[in-house]
């Protein structure tokens, strides 16, 4: 069983938001909602100011608080360690939204929790997630973290990288190459 993960190269990502558009089209996401987004943070004090642009989505945490806070078992770990929502079980109670340190989830127009699925439907057909395959600067790498020969594992082996909010203790599987 693979363990899917993703790495985004902060040196080549230019914040164009093509990933956001590709995701919306591929997954037919509601008009006012996004599974994937580009955020900016500025920090520092003039003249030493830094602007960081991050393409964010569900971190597909291995220790996912959305899964263990779900009262009905709708949120679950599917194949490859990807966190999915079983719509037939979701009551729309929003415990998972409250539990997610990354604010990666929202309630869609059908009244159920929705989030990034790493485009598991595409991955099963041997394709890459929509955001990865569309990225014009090839800043995104998708693959199996447990396969040492995968481009993802090899890149993470040599490049300095970090996850978001590791202090939340959820073992995220989305990494940013610095």
């Amino acid at each position, binding site marked *: 069983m693979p363990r899917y993960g993703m790495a985004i190269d902060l040196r080549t990502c230019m914040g164009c938001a093509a990933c956001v558009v590709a995701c919306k089209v591929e997954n037919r996401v509601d008009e006012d909602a996004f599974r994937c987004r580009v955020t900016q943070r500025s920090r520092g004090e003039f003249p030493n100011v830094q602007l960081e642009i991050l393409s964010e989505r569900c971190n597909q945490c291995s220790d996912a608080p959305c899964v263990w806070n779900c009262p009905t078992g*709708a949120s679950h770990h599917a194949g490859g360690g990807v966190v999915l929502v079983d719509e037939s079980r979701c009551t729309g109670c929003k415990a998972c939204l409250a539990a997610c340190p990354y604010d990666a989830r929202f309630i869609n127009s059908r009244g159920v929790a929705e989030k990034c699925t790493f485009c598991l439907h595409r991955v099963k057909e041997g394709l890459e997630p929509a955001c990865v395959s569309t990225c014009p600067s090839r800043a995104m790498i998708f693959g199996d973290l447990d396969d040492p020969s995968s481009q993802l594992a090899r890149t993470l082996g040599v490049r300095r990288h970090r996850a978001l909010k590791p202090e939340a203790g959820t073992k995220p599987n989305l990494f940013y190459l610095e």
Partner: protein
Amino acid sequence: MMPMDVDIAGRNAETFPALHVWGWEIAAYLFLGGLAAGLLILSGWMHRREAPEKLSPALAWLAPLLAPAVLSAGMLALFLDLENKWNVWRFYTAFRWSAPMSWGAWILALVYPASLLFAWAAWSESGPAGKRGVTGAPFPLRRLIAGLNIACGVALGVYTGILLGALGARPLWNSPLLGPLFLLSGLSAAAALLVLLEKDHEWRHRLARLDVRLIAAEAAVLALFFLALLTGGQAQRAAAELFFGGPYTAVFWTAVVFSGMALPVWLERLEKKGRVAHSAVAPALVLFGGLALRAVLVFAGQTSSWEVLL
């Protein structure tokens, strides 16, 4: 280099309403659930302590009758909060030990029939003489039914705090002290409601004095709650600062602390000394404060985040 400002585009409910989590419904449920829990505990405790003829009407049958009614209103608010209402039955086809909300759903399934049984038994024992179903005789298994309802009340009252307390993603909520805090607040709200309804002078004073003690205990737990946050890490301190200079400072100190706790305690003292006549103001303020506490914590909690560490 210290971060001077952190601006984030597109990740909060203000930018994207789709990221909104909980609204007034959850605040209302936490208050009504706590109030029902308080009614069950106070009445159950009195039934175990005193013989039927020594009880006040408010404690003897009004509180047990009100508890399931208040709980029903709270459960209606919970139901209104569900975005996919057709799937509400899914709560009862699974038990997820790791999910506080699953515990909450099953606790409700236990509390509701237990409180109905208590209401029926208490009515038959102490309801107004001559009314339908009133026998005037002590109900069978009196101590057991009262004890069961105390246990149910404690589980319900503590649960409302654990629901928020178990969410590690929100540093403001992530405290085990929310359980006892909401339990004490529910007990004090229940005592206040009974003061409003009690006609017997002596009992009204006893309940009002009890309420003052409960508010004092609640204030102590609230102080510990903030102490834990203020001595915690950066995210915890940022969460506490929502109430110490942050956007929730004014509403918290005026509505919860001043109007809901300090003012009613002061009024009760004046009343005890005979300086003011008894009025509905003090207990009504306690009830308002209980609702304000839940609302402020529910809304403020959703804005607290680990984001400050970036």
